[in-house]
């Protein structure tokens, strides 16, 4: 994750939401000089299929827990989606099989963690425990045709030698995402595709509170 000061980040923000950039700029201008350097952002680039949240826990692009000082709304960060998309997944377990089904899509210029932040600021009681799983891009993509048949599987295996020999039942149970992750060449190449999220530092919300209190 790369730290960006406001001047660096403002162009990125303006490109996706000019109104938000203008509002942040007003907050930044009114902040004491000594505090302005803390009003920064962290740019996270999540490769395709990497989790942004897993079972409600915020993750960095490398899969490790997100830095504690970015968790501003309870246990959640506030971030702006700069491009591509995130997919909210419903994980359903049936017969010990995990089914990932899309519940919602989040696109460029949407803020994640905003409602949770508002709840936090308003000290709303009885807030639900967050258990979302959110990924970079869609893990739920479906191929119209799947290499279930042996002849089609073997064509793949001719190119990707480390694939196992065709086993009808095993291939039937495979999902698209499993197949993508099984073939390391495709997995690596597909991870060049990223969704960028710009996280706000906690200082933004402390400063915002300070300015609101002064009014």
């Amino acid at each position: 994750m790369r730290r960006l000061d406001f001047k660096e980040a403002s162009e990125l923000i303006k490109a996706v939401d000019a109104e938000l950039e203008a509002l942040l700029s007003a907050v930044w201008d009114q902040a004491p000089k000594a505090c302005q350097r803390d009003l920064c952002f962290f740019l996270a680039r999540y490769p395709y299929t990497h989790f942004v949240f897993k079972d409600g826990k915020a993750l960095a692009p490398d899969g490790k827990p997100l830095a504690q000082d970015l968790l501003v709304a309870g246990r959640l960060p506030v971030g702006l989606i700069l491009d591509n998309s995130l997919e909210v997944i419903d994980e359903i377990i049936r017969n010990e099989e995990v089914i990932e089904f899309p519940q919602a899509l989040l696109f460029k210029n949407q803020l994640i963690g905003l409602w949770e932040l508002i709840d936090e600021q308003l000290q709303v009681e009885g807030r639900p425990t967050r258990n979302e799983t959110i990924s970079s891009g869609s893990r739920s993509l479906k191929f119209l045709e799947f290499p279930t048949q042996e002849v089609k599987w073997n064509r793949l295996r001719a190119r990707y030698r480390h694939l196992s020999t065709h086993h009808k039942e095993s291939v039937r149970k495979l999902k698209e995402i499993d197949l993508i992750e099984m073939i390391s060449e495709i997995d690596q190449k597909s991870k060049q595709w990223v969704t960028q999220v710009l996280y706000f530092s906690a200082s933004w919300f402390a400063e915002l509170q300070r300015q609101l209190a002064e009014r």
Partner: protein
Amino acid sequence: MRYNDDQLTDALTEWGGDSNAARCKAAYLLLRYSLQVLSQRRPCFGLADSIHPNLGPLDTLKEELLQVARLNPTILGPMYLHAGQVGFLSLSQLVPSAFEQSPEDSLENIFKIISRARDAAVKRNVAVPGLDNLPGLFSRLRFRVRTGRQRQKGRHGSVLTFKVDCSQSGAGTFPRRSIPIEAFYEPTFSAVNLPPSDSRFFRVAMKLDLRESINIPEY
């Protein structure tokens, strides 16, 4: 969006007359998901490349995987359904255990669960969200199921495509009316380029249609 213990679940499991948990779940999801898709609160599936090119590395998957195995290059992805559009949901992928054997019979049993629950709710004069406007909902749905029973001639001979009429209560199930396979897929797929008959996604699938304005209440 989790409704595990709501009125609709209770009505389907208690009044649906079927003790099979997977089929009750499938009946619930058929109603709940289709209502949410039609009221634009949940995505369904459409062609990923033309509608949302920002869902993933589609070109890599096509070139490095689908072309290598010489498979149909079409990728389906989640999308919100807007007025004038159609989309699909795969019931057999959502609840595989409900359709492991005889998918056509399983789907029929799911319709029976819904029908019995609706009739019981009417009899008891109880309003159950999700069961109170079935004709409006089902007018927007078409079904496609692989079947080994009603074989017909042709490339898609073992596939049934139909709509159901649930305007009459007390019938025990819903009368079906067959529709041409092309009508199930149009306008997403052309008549000369239909999905393969053994498509996993379409094993038991629904087409959701927002091309005409019918009022679908939100739940």
